[in-house]
């Protein structure tokens, strides 16, 4: 046991200070996408929705509905569209399932 005691002393503290202080290890985590409003056209939105493996994206009229709860941050949509980028949000706990559902306005139809 003395062996383990000394090992522990020599290692020092590794514990994160989160939530008191931010932890830079969170920078490594994959995070859900964020969308540039009004930059995605309807058919591109449909493509994105079709691309999403966890059905987190769907188009409702002129809005792209993004369900952050269903999103697995796989990054497929970010690869597919320049208007989608990693959001960097990892603190996503919600007290209501509906708070995780986001609506992003799409690019208005051309020629209207």
């Amino acid at each position, binding site marked *: 046991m003395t062996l383990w005691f000394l090992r522990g002393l020599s290692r020092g503290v*590794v*514990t994160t200070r989160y*939530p008191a202080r931010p932890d830079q290890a*969170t920078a490594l985590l994959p995070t859900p996408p964020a969308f540039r409003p009004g930059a995605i056209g309807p058919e591109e939105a449909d493509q994105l929705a079709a691309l999403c493996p966890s059905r987190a994206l769907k188009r409702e009229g002129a809005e792209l509905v993004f369900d*952050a709860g269903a999103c697995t*941050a796989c990054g497929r949509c970010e690869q597919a569209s320049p208007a989608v980028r990693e959001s960097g949000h990892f603190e996503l*706990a919600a007290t209501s399932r509906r708070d995780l559902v*986001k609506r992003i306005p799409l690019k208005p139809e051309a020629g209207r």
Partner: protein
Amino acid sequence: MNKDQDPLPPASTRDPMPSGEPAEAAIQDAAGELRHRIASQFGRSLHIRTLDTGSCAVCEQEIRLLTAPHYDLHRLGFFFTPAPRHADLLLVTGPMIRAFDVAARKTYEAMPGPKIVVATGACALGGVYQADAFVHGSVGEVLPVDVWIPGCPPSPFALLQGLLVAVGRLYEKVSSLPFEVAG
């Protein structure tokens, strides 16, 4: 082996999650009130029982890591307990397999009130699996969920934040996040 376990009762018939607005709202109010009671009662010492309803074993790994030196859940006053009798919070992973209805309900009913249910991971939130003969598709179908933690898997940081939100020691942010980027 079927001799050993009785056929399970039919799955609960609550309508899927994001719909059903008024009932939803009522549940949320109740949940909020409950969270305040909990924060006042044991905001600094809370015992957690986990429940795997069909996860792919990765959420479990992340939950185990919560007690690892890097995260050390105990410093925040959270403790894991194997007995639901002593548990205040139920941490549920997986898409809620129908073969697991009985076990899930029993575990929930074995917990003394006030109790919190936290759904963990994209499966539990209805992401990966659609409802079908095998799974309900979301924990919300069977248990009254108070806090939802997205992610596949939710990292220990996300879990910490979720737990702190569940006991009202952090305010949840996501409702104010637009998931929109400028430029």
